[in-house]
């Protein structure tokens, strides 16, 4: 029965994911494609000749009925075809994939750093609750949460690039030229992104662990002969990680969006730059493709969190046993 339940749960979550994505695509489509005004004229600007507008309309397939265009777009995306950028004349999927080579590693670096720093901080603070270590760590986290990541990026550049000259101020060297240099270029932006995330994680971890510490089963563990910190370590941390997992998922989803802001500080050619160029050049096909890509990543992360949850928490899968 347990396996069936799990399969059922996975199926439901997956269906929910698909529906959310579909509706999100519909919203994006309606906003960018059906709003009053002619997209072709919007793209070409007010001074375009009627012939140019008509040509573009024809090329974009705008004369087809709306539902045909929508399902054409959806169908294309299912086969990996996100359309052709009107300004760059390249497949949108290719443009996004190029930029993801910057955005994705950057988000991953930030995620790894924030986990490596935030979780131990939170655990330590919870273990030393009410003591000086706890207060110091929480003041640190309180400050970290309040610092805008892009501003922190500026400060990091001032210190490590301008004053100490350890790391580059910005720019991006493609991975296939010199991966080491690429990585060095991502260190500061990664740190800038990680700071607030690590602070949030530290706070969430501490709260979760403090809550768990007050639960009866920690007392049971102590009654068995464990000291308080042994009991928290062996029984508390695993339980406290469950609520943290949810936050972690949200964070990763928003990190990807957050890179758009931070890559500005370091002149990185990430997804953000692509989108801003697309907006200023009125490349709606590209904007549409890039936003649905961001929504896809966000939704996918939530799905992964939900599924992981089901695997980690026996209470979810074993309800019928």
């Amino acid at each position, binding site marked *: 029965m347990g396996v069936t339940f799990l399969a059922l749960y996975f199926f439901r979550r997956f269906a929910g994911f698909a529906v959310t994505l579909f509706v999100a695509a519909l919203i994006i489509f309606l906003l960018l494609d059906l709003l009053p005004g002619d997209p072709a004229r919007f793209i070409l600007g007010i001074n375009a000749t009627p012939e140019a507008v008509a040509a573009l309309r024809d090329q974009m397939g705008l004369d087809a009925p709306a539902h045909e265009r929508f399902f054409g777009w959806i169908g294309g995306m299912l086969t990996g075809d996100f359309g052709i950028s009107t300004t760059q004349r390249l497949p949108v999927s290719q443009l996004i994939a190029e930029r993801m080579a910057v955005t994705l590693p950057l988000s991953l670096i930030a995620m790894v750093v924030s986990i490596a720093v935030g979780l131990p901080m939170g655990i330590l603070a919870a273990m030393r609750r009410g003591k000086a270590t706890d207060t110091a760590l929480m003041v640190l986290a309180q400050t970290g949460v309040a610092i805008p990541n892009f501003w922190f990026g500026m400060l990091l550049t001032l210190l490590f690039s301008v004053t100490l000259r350890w790391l580059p101020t910005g720019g991006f060297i493609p991975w296939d030229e010199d991966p080491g240099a690429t990585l060095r270029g991502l260190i500061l932006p990664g740190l800038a992104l990680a700071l607030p995330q690590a602070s949030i994680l530290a706070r969430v971890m501490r709260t979760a662990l403090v809550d768990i510490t007050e639960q009866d089963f920690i007392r*049971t563990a*102590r009654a068995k002969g464990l000291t308080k910190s042994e009991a928290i370590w062996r029984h508390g941390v695993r339980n406290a990680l469950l609520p943290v997992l949810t936050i972690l998922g949200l964070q990763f989803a928003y990190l990807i969006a957050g890179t758009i802001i931070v890559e500005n500080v370091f002149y990185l050619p990430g997804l953000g730059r692509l989108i801003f160029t697309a907006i200023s050049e009125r490349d709606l096909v590209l904007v549409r493709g890039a936003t649905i890509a961001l929504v896809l990543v966000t939704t996918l992360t939530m799905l992964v969190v939900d599924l992981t949850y089901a695997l980690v*928490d026996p*209470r979810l899968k074993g309800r*019928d046993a």
Partner: protein
Amino acid sequence: MALVELADLTIAFGGRPAVSGLSLRIERGDRFGIIGESGSGKSLTALAIAGLLPETATVSGEVQFDGVPLPADERALARMRGKRIGMVFQEPMTALNPLMRIGEQIEEAIALAELSEAAQTLLPGLLGEVGLEPGHAARFPHQLSGGQRQRAMIAMALVSQPELMIADEPTSALDVITQRTVLDLITEICTRRHMTLLFISHDIRAVAALCSRVGVMRAGKLVEQGDTEAVLGAPKADYTRRLLAASRMDRQAALIKPHDRPLLAVKNLSRVYQQAGFWFWRNPPLRAVDEVSFEIGAGECVALVGPSGCGKTTLARMIVGLDSASEGHMVLDGSPYRGRDLPPLLRAGLSLVFQDPFSSFDPRMSMGDSLAEPLHLLGRLSGEEQAARLREAVEAVGLETGMLKRYPHEFSGGQRQRLAIARALVTRPRLVVLDEPVSALDVSLRGEVLHLLSRLRAEHGLSYLIISHDLDMVAAMADRVLVMEKGRIVEEGTPEHLFAAPQHRLTRALMAARLPDVA
């Protein structure tokens, strides 16, 4: 030498003492019971013996275990606790780690007792001793019933063959039949293993049945201690006498004779829940209430008893109109209804008193506003009329109208339950459904509330439907008892009849689970 010796123990939180000047000795082989109501400091005393008090507590006085003060070093204290003291707590659901299998949790205790080489053989033996099957070791806590979880806790406490077993209200979260089997298990194990027991409970009868010596605690002080027969047979302290009196429930004389004409008729009522599932995996629907029929006469007091999950609460919810029947219907005073479709004026004719007086009032609303809420059902009433209704209801339960301006947190549990009864009376109903009306109250208050209910019934000619698992209370209050199991009524009769010669297996089990009266 005493195994446990407390001398002038005082435990305080933020300067306020929760236990003060407590001294007691527990000899080896004793079965010591501490009786006390909530907030009496009995659990804190137990935690102090095991060195498990919260860090915020300030402790003075002395705790000696086996002639030696508790070690100051945390690790030494923890290991001593693990080897020499076993503990069983009240709530077995939260006392077990939800993410670990039962077997793993017991094995951890085995490892800590430093008996690991014997672990292979120890686990099945322990499970057997507490009445679990070997297969239960692979389960997670949420996959066991409450009783099974408590057995697992006991197994864990037994691992190190402790000299002292502390059981803090080990049965109060369990249902009646399970309560008795767990109590019997603890008795049996203590006898077999010659283990010293510290048993903590608010239930004087459980202590009397289990313990050789007792201490009675009230407001942080030990008011009396001694051999069980001496203390309970000839109590010296006034408080002990009151507790004893409250534990005996006298038959509340029915002052009025019920009419034969039915006030409420329940006809083939069923409530069916669709279970979670999907297409062909769907589990069969759960029939929480399954074709139940009965009648309540005007002025009659009917009790509905049964183990938890038998459907008695679902049935009550349909009768008062909080839920709707899937099949069948009810007839109140000649008007048929299915549940939620109960029209306002008919709704005013019946009311419900909840089990927990602490959650039955909105903390953000004054008592007066809460009590006036049901008056909506009567249509628009003038301010004077409303005030008159409130006064009538409040005075009927022996409280003053001045109290209506206050908020719920300013009242004690007993006062709140009186006010809850007042709210139930404010629309002058004819049928009042009482859902475990006294089980959330301290023992010493239960008698008064039951007495109040009987008086109101006589004065206002009320009909009662009492939902309960407490056979003694039911025997004291009801004219007629219905026994319910798995959604069906399996036996019916007057309390005298039913309890003297129970026919159905469940009724017999319920009777057998009753603890003997004290003294």
